[in-house]
């Protein structure tokens, strides 16, 4: 996954940019893989017409809903969502956003799996998606603890054994609102956002995976993620692989 700055160094010098300038390297890398027409496309391949493609953006918007409702809940505090109907309503919005978020993620995973969406050098797109899911699971778990109700008591007291078993009993103490709050309100959402951003960037970088070649066609297909040598560069700006 390199921008191959050495090969591009002469071009950089020709542009008056000092080789080894990290910012210039970053700019070249970004403009190579995320030109505007790829980053902000106004068209998509003809096969992108099915409803299952929507579940990625539905998961994304569920995450946005989680952030908005979560920020409001954090600022008002447990007393608010335990004692007022409006607070409980926002707690409910957060609760159901989580359910919708994971439902959409599972459908998205299912469609990505059965379409082998990692083909064509899209392995990292899959991996960033999986990492988003893993961090989201931890976020969800800690969310159940910061509910600060009976469910939180039970889950914190029971799940602490798993954390202890792997040596994380103090780093992630599920029986301490002080500790879990830091994870759930700050670190883990940032982690989800980070991997989600990478996932989206890689989706835009490679585009939506094409269908498997139809049987009987002369379309040559490869089942494996392609390395740079397999890419057909040249005429298409999208014909680049990483």
């Amino acid at each position, binding site marked *: 996954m390199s921008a191959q700055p050495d090969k591009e160094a002469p071009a950089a010098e020709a542009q008056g940019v000092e080789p080894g300038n990290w910012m210039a390297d970053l700019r070249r890398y970004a403009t190579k893989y995320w030109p505007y027409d790829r980053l902000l496309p*106004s068209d998509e391949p003809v096969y992108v017409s099915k409803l299952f493609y929507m579940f990625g953006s539905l998961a994304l918007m569920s995450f946005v809903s989680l952030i908005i409702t979560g920020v409001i809940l954090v600022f008002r505090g447990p007393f608010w969502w335990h004692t007022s109907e409006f607070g409980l309503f926002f707690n409910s919005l957060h609760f159901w956003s989580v359910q919708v978020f994971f439902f959409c993620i599972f459908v998205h995973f299912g469609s990505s799996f059965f379409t082998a969406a990692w083909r064509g050098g899209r392995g990292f797109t899959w991996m960033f998606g999986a990492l988003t899911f893993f961090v989201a699971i931890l976020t969800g778990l800690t969310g159940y603890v910061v509910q600060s109700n009976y*469910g939180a008591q039970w889950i914190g007291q029971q799940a602490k054994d798993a954390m202890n078993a792997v040596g994380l009993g103090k780093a992630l103490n599920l029986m301490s609102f002080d500790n879990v709050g830091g994870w759930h309100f700050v670190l883990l959402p940032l982690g989800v956002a980070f991997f989600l951003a990478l996932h989206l960037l890689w989706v835009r970088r*490679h585009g939506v995976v094409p269908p*498997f070649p139809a049987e009987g066609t002369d*379309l040559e297909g490869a089942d494996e993620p392609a390395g740079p040598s397999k890419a057909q560069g040249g005429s298409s700006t*999208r014909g680049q692989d990483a």
Partner: protein
Amino acid sequence: MSRGPAPWKSSDVAWRGGKRPYDLLKEVLISGIVVGVLVIGLSLLFASPDPKAVTFAEWSTQGTEDFVTTTVSEIDQSSLSATYGPPYQSTAQNGSTQGFGPLSPEKWFGEQIPIDTWQNYVVFPLTSLGEPSVDAAIKQWDGADAATQSGWVTTYQTAVTTATFGEGTVTVPSGDYGPLDTLVQAQLGMATTGALDAALLYNQSDSTQGGPVWYSNDQTFALMYFGDSGNGGAGADCISPGRLASRTHVAQVPATPPGGGCWYYNLSVDNSAPRFGGYLAGDTWGITNEVGNFPGPWWLVPYTVWYQFGPGLNGSSADLFAMIATALVSLPFLFLPWIPGLRNIPKLTRVYRLMWGDYYHLVEREQHQTPAGGV
């Protein structure tokens, strides 16, 4: 659609065939509206579970016998949290440290959150009373040797079996219990008034401030104390596995009468109040469930499944087993695109033919019309 040589390969990084106008921003907007309508609708229809947190005041009045016997085990440091081992003590007194041979992260990290149940759960709260008789009882207990303490405990535990319990009261026949009855009565008194809840929420581990840290929101001591209820869920009054076979989802009557011996655990497994409508014990998929009829964190099934059989169900290192198994399964999931065989499963299942049905019909129709052509 052009003719001639194959214009694309499935290994291409992006499609070079036909395209159609597509507004991604509108898709995101529509998704936002769909999510918004769904979430607001579900919230208005069903709200969300918010069962009130249980308290020591409730425990001591609704499960007085359980509270008393548990407190005795905190005093003589025989409870689950007193003998747990890492991260609460340097070594486990009950042999519960998890590990497979040399693989034992619990041991590697050692004591990280020190818990001394006598000091943290009993002495600290009781000294806040400023009661001379209680202070004297603490001093008497501290001054006794282990054999004497053990004798008091044995005698007291026997007496408790014939004691008279009320809701938050216990009357033990007179006997040689040393300071035990004074300590237990004082602890019970603090609990029933709610003072114990407050006392245990102070962070007692920091002595640099010369006392409790007022700004603290650490429930470790309190929840570990709760967890010792009913001998850590193993007591005779604890509802046994298999309970679900004879029970409906929500039981409307208390599982055990006031004074029963497994209050905290039975709350979760027997739904002793209507608001606790779920079954949350580990052998019934634990935290994957939710109280009431609400959906729980079902996405934790890939983790909780490991508690349903084998070492995860009966092993002494069940949690470590479940964590390792989950991690081992997660790795091929994470690196699926690079694992030969696994990555070919989608092609073998041919589910993609259904998912892209329209596209394949189009290709086949064109192929039929132009046998030599491409897409």
